[in-house]
């Protein structure tokens, strides 16, 4: 927790939140926003953060990250991951349960939450749907929900058995929690290392067809209809999936969906180099899928952009495509990459993008004010002081060695991105100032 007396003035920026967009300074004290107005005076002893030319938004919320703790601390820890998150403008993350051991018991959930108590952002944890993420017996969802777990998923794999998923959804309904699905039918995806199509056929690499994802999206839309429970679709990667979700929403079903920055930008053509940095699950798809996902963001079909930050130690990537672990870093590059992807030709504004990365994901994960949470704004007196100050014009080159993550597996290495997080304020504490983590 931040020190109660800490006073911070964010000066000269444009405040952007669900309420709109206005030129204003933001005064923060004791972990809360106390004043939002033009030309505020700095109280004595206040830390003044320059936000000239910057957007000041509610802190970003990443509802899909892998913090690797417990069990894979050489790749990431709650602390290092939360530092990466803070540098990326996030004031809350939802840690996936595919740790070792997985988050399928109150003990493991409690461990992650207690590690998160001293982190540089809010660390919430998703619980597993099934014991050991094995897809067979339901995990103790009630015990986990009692600890504050709002989202359950076997992410890393989808629940393959429709009967098991149905029971889980029925049970979840009573708890008021959301089940999030990693949509991939393993019998169709089996052994696939990249999108199945022109490139996989040419490169001689086993592929994962788009249908492996779409069949499970279609199944779970049907199960949402059957059970009336909430379903969140993780990291959708195909045009067909976006169409299925749009249809389900039109029907009024309680479904939501996220996409990743890399599925909004990169295609399977990157695999021509066989560089395992581009191996990710779900795989990078075709340009037509990228366009459809961008359109889905613009149309409101997609509720959130989530990084699917997936750290891996070097040896897990410095091998063949087949042997390499799937996944890429995302926390520190997500906002710049997404801004670039979505404000380019989709008609979306920076505020539309921030909605997908702050207040809308906060709602999906039960972290918004209306759920008793402190994320997603809006920025007004009395609100929790979780802020992201973003300079949309600032260009920077991604140097993997300078990332806060313990791992280096970013596909953006050496590339120049436009837009950088300048300051991040978490519960009133400036955890990032001028692009530097403060602890």
């Amino acid at each position, binding site marked *: 927790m931040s020190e109660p007396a800490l006073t911070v003035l964010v000066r000269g920026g444009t405040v952007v939140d669900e309420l709109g967009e206005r030129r204003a300074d933001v005064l923060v004290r004791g972990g809360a926003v106390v004043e939002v107005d033009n030309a505020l005076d700095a109280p004595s002893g206040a830390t003044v953060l320059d936000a000239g030319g910057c957007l000041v938004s509610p802190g970003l919320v990443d509802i899909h990250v892998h913090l690797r703790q417990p069990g894979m601390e050489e790749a990431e820890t709650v602390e290092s991951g939360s530092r990466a998150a803070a540098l990326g403008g996030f004031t809350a993350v939802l840690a996936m349960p595919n740790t070792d051991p997985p988050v399928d018991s109150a003990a493991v959930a409690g461990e992650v939450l207690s590690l998160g108590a001293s982190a540089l952002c809010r660390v919430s944890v998703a619980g597993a749907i099934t014991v050991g993420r094995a897809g067979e017996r339901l995990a103790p969802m009630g015990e986990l929900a009692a600890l504050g777990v709002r989202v359950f998923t076997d992410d890393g794999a989808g629940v393959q058995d429709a009967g098991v998923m149905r029971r889980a959804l029925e049970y979840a309904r009573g708890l008021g929690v959301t089940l999030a699905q990693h949509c991939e039918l393993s019998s169709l995806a089996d052994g696939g290392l990249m999108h199945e199509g022109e490139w996989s*056929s040419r490169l001689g690499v086993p592929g994962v067809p788009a249908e492996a994802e779409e069949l499970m999206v279609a199944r779970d839309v049907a199960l949402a209809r059957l059970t009336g429970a909430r379903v969140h679709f993780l990291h959708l990667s195909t045009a067909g999936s976006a169409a299925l979700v749009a249809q389900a929403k039109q029907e009024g079903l309680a479904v939501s969906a996220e996409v990743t920055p890399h599925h909004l930008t990169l295609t399977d053509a990157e695999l021509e180099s066989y560089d395992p940095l581009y191996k990710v699950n779900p795989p990078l798809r075709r340009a037509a899928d990228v366009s459809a996902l961008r359109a889905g963001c613009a149309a409101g079909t997609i509720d959130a952009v989530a990084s699917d930050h997936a750290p891996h130690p070097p040896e897990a990537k410095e091998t063949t495509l087949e042997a390499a672990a799937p996944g890429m870093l995302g926390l520190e590059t997500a906002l710049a990459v997404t801004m670039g992807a979505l404000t380019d030709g989709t008609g979306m504004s920076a505020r539309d993008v921030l909605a997908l990365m702050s207040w809308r994901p906060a709602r999906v994960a039960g972290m918004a004010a209306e759920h008793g949470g402190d994320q997603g704004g809006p920025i007004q007196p009395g609100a929790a002081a979780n802020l992201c100050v973003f300079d949309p014009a600032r260009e920077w080159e991604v140097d993997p060695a300078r990332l806060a993550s313990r791992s280096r597996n970013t596909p953006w290495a050496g590339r120049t991105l436009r837009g950088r997080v300048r300051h991040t304020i978490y519960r009133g504490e400036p955890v990032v100032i001028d692009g530097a983590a403060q602890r």
Partner: protein
Amino acid sequence: MSGAPANGGRHLLSVGDLGAEGIEEVLRVADAFVEVGRRPIPKVPALRGRTVVTLFAEESTRTRLSFETAARRLSADVLSFSVERSSVKKGESLRDTVETVAAMGVDAMVVRHPAAGAPHQVARWVDAAVINAGDGWHEHPTQALLDCYTIRQVLAERAGLDLSSCGTECFGGLRVAVVGDIRHSRVARSGVWALAALGARVTLVAPGSLLPSSLEGWPLDGVSHDLDAVLGAVDVCYLLRLQIERGAGAFLPSLREYSAGYGLTARRAALLAEHALVMHPGPMNRGIEIADDVADLPRSLVLRQVRNGVAVRMAVLFLLLGSGTAAADAGELIGAAGE
């Protein structure tokens, strides 16, 4: 190699690295080395002092022997490394293994690996020239080169032409059927592109489950599921090995049904035009993709393919490691072989 834009000519990872010009250059240089192979002492000093390592993570006695013979005939020092049998079993990463071998001072690495793209990875980690000797389902470039060489050699002989005066015109309009397990075949992924680059018209013949999931961008004349209908109109019938040991059987109801539909039986061989050639990269599954008596017909080039493999691999090693890149240099060096 002069026709090699993709990687500055330092490696041979894919036939796409060569292009038509690059392929033609290899074939021309190989002509000279075929002649060397006929000498009482089939050895030239072209790569004396250079070191070639064969790094095989998958068993392949034939390909390894062919490369090692080629390197020795060029007077290179040869190291032989079996990844499976040594360090990888002790938990060493592929990168560490490769860097360790490179640290011994090697000029070329000939890489065979069960994972597609492994040679591309190796090429990123070492300074040596990397030659793909077969990676997963991806490519087997020197197989495609020796197949092209063999076709050109036979066509020149039949036309009564001296090989040294032949370019690659003989491939123009040449009708080739590639038959069998295209999906899992690195031979097909190199061969189709090499043949098409030289002007051949390639038709794939396979059951649907053994075709790649997409053929977008493949330089094909056609795709067929009816071998009988295709055979009468081809100049070359190229049979692929059914990779039974890798589970190709799971893509088929039975081997018997495959053989009945796609095997080159004696009855089917009779449908071929008189001049048509039969090729197979080996090792053959006699009785499955090719009948015993067909494999031994004069029109079957299987052994000639193997024989030419050494000369073609000599040409590749020479072009990647030799001082010059022109065929003329090869001529000079070979001339000095009598020492």
